[in-house]
């Protein structure tokens, strides 16, 4: 959910772009972190723990904790809390440690 009205901040958002997450089309604003767009769409599960596959969400939002690793445009282990959204990005759930294709 987007915050539209705020007493202090005016949000400067980029243009609307489309991207896919696990095959489904989503919308977000260009230049915001992929995680922000996913969160807006109600997607909370981003990464998974390696051994037990436990669902993991976003945690630090500054690219530090590795809780949000996903496959982006075929590249594994992308920290989606800091990776900027671009038109046509292909975002996928990562299984395990990720393979370099």
């Amino acid at each position, binding site marked *: *959910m*987007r*915050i*539209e*009205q*705020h*007493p*202090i*901040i005016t*949000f400067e*958002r980029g243009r609307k772009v489309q991207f896919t997450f696990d095959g489904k089309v989503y919308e977000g604003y260009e*230049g*915001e*972190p992929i*995680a*922000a767009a996913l*969160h*807006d769409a109600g997607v*909370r*599960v*981003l990464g998974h*723990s390696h051994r037990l596959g*436990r*669902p*993991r*969400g*976003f*945690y*630090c*939002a*500054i*690219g*530090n*904790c590795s*809780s949000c690793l996903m496959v982006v445009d075929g590249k594994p282990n992308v920290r989606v*809390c*800091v990776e*900027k959204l671009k038109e046509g990005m292909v975002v996928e759930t990562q299984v395990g440690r990720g393979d370099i294709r």
Partner: protein
Amino acid sequence: MIHTDIVVVGGGPAGMRAAINAAESGAKVIVIDRDGHLGGQLVKQTHMFFGSQKQYASTRGIDIAKILIAELEKHKDKITVMTDSTVIGFYEDRVLTVEQAGKYIKIKPNAIVVATGASEKFNAFPNNDLPGIYGAGAVQTLMNVYGVAPGDSVFMSGAGNIGLIVSYQLMQAGIKVKGVICRGPEFGGYAVHASKLRRMGVPVMPSHKVVYAHGKDKLERITLIKMDENKKEIPGTEFDIEVDVLCIATGLTPLVELLWQAGCEMKYVSELSGHVPLRDENLMTSLEGIYVAGDVAGIEEASSAMVEGALAGLCAAESLGYKHPDFETLKEDYRSQLYNLRSGPEGDSIRKGLSKVQLKEVGL
């Protein structure tokens, strides 16, 4: 290999002030930040700062960031800014390696100011990794920088200034805050922030802690327990609260990896929230030419981070022969500002922590 006088790692409040002061002294500076913009965590801080005029009191963090960025701009001839750039190594021969847009860059500065800041701590309880359990700073970034609500209803664990301020900001953004807790009998943040929340109907409850998180693939409910005066759990006092977001605001820990790698002498100091470098009165570490400023040197407020940055930048430049015309006056002024910021009962713990990390007696 790029050569320069000073590299500042981290473009937050400490790093920016370090760069400005070093440039004013005449040194050539490169500021490196892994984020896409300068400002560090100031860019999400919509609240007004305390302190004195010199630390921009009564100005909002987001505006302080703009002021500092504008000041940096004035020194364009001396300061090079590298954003979206991550320092990934700091070697014994003082070479820094940096990743920028897939490129691997080597930089050799004559002095370095490490102002890498801090990272949020985790808390230990079952299911603490459920999506919906987020660092309070992360939630602040999500809502104040990107305008995305973290969820429908939030519970805050931690009642220091971050916990209290972020709770208030959640309410400002129209998001329900179901309560704020802390383990001890008294909350750590300023009373003014807690009162504001209470006036808005948010329960601020000392002597509680989260013992369990429930939910399958996202947070649905948390179990709290009451604590006695000695911070021990009181059995049988558990109760549940339904929330989809739990914010963890129980502290930060310094991001000191580069200092370890460089070989600086480090010490664990609980009052400073983690392993921190030993330093002298000029904020130089045990290694010649390596300076620190801000949260990386011990967790404090952004106001002290800015003053530390100014001091470190000034002294790093001076050590290379770039002496600011007002060097002595400025240095004395920064030291007295730090002294004032750390005075009083709120500064007790910081003063105690700092007394353990001085390379030389400095008479704090």
